[in-house]
């Protein structure tokens, strides 16, 4: 990698690390895992830098990779037995809003990703569909189900619909 490319990669690394790791954290609720996933995504960007640097938004590529890794990780965790999960409890009480964190963790992995991208990152449905490699109607369905599940868990009412 030439010095100029290295500097450009460094710039994207610095720009993407914080925002992406926060988004991943809201999905996995594990600080170390969130950072590991983000670093893995950024490492993949480095490996494919020649290609990725030519994209219109390299940081969007990193976000997509990180979220897909996070979804796979959540799916792996969901497949574990209850006893295994109990061995690694998540400390929600450290968070400012543990109720929301607990409620989000009750959602299926794809629903979590859709909720975080929609309500935290304010991404439009078509962008979420692109990130998760599903159709827009699937994203709307994820959001619809997630909203109702979260409304029940949080004891709140359901308001507006997906954009």
């Amino acid at each position, binding site marked *: 990698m030439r010095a100029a490319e290295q500097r*450009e990669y460094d710039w994207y690394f610095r720009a993407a690390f914080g925002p992406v790791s*926060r988004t991943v954290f*809201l999905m996995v609720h594990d600080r170390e895992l*969130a950072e590991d996933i983000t670093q893995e995504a950024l490492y993949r960007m480095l490996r494919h830098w020649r290609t990725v640097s030519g994209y219109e938004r390299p940081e969007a590529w990193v976000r997509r990779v990180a979220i897909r890794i996070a979804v796979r990780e959540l799916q792996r965790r969901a497949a574990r037995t209850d006893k295994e999960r109990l061995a690694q409890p998540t400390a929600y009480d450290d968070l400012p*809003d543990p109720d*929301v*964190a607990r409620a989000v963790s009750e959602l299926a992995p794809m629903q979590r990703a859709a909720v975080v991208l929609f309500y935290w990152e304010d991404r439009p449905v078509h962008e979420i569909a692109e990130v998760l490699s599903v159709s827009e109607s699937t994203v709307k369905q994820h959001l619809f189900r997630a909203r109702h599940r*979260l409304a029940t868990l949080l004891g709140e*009412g*359901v308001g507006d619909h997906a954009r």
Partner: protein
Amino acid sequence: MPVEDRLRQGLEANATSFSPRGESRLAQVHRRRRRHNGAVAASLGVAATLLAAVVVQVVPGWSPGSTPPAADDCSPLRGQPAPEEDSMDKRTIAAAGTVAALASACNPAGGTSRNPTWDTSPGSSSATSRDRLPERGGWLRDVTAKQGRALGVPARTVRRLAGEDGVLPLGFKLQQGSFTIWTNDDAGEATAWDFGTYSYASGHRLVFTTISDRCPSCRTTLAWRTVDDDVVFDQVDRTRAGSLARWLWQGRWDYQG
């Protein structure tokens, strides 16, 4: 409260409570790098000042009042590789401030012959009655990503400089024969974009000679005029990366006294 609002508030609170260790490590590295750059610039400044002092002592017949050596004669800066125009690391204003001393030291005449002030005589507020720009205060302006793209600046460069909001706040200052142009990023942090020496040329033109490693010895020539206290650069030519220079420089700059 609708669940959507509850979610937005909760997610925001939880996200902002998370400060990635990697990010703080990056911030530390960044700070160390800025300090290092500042120290390097300071030592270069000292070296250049000593060099200038030696020149005054050694070269017979030369004095600060005589014809100054060309800006390109700044020997400590010769032979540096010219990196890609749009790939330079941003430098801090503090470093640039130190480099201003280097610039004036490299060009000993700068301090005396290039210390213009506004012509404040009555009736002097017309656009071209001034022949020098003041070395106090500075000028500010905003450029947009749209303007950059229209001028043919590479999309990646525009995106990187203008950020998410598509607006790039800029400032420039003349001081002791040197110029500095800086940018403010989305977080409001000012970083020097380019710096070097400046001189006036015929035809109401200003010539900036870069001494930063962005493009060592590159010259940017700007046709300038004043409107009230503001300055307008109408025509911009640069040794290379002309479109980027036009995007950054061309247009009206608001004077800040």
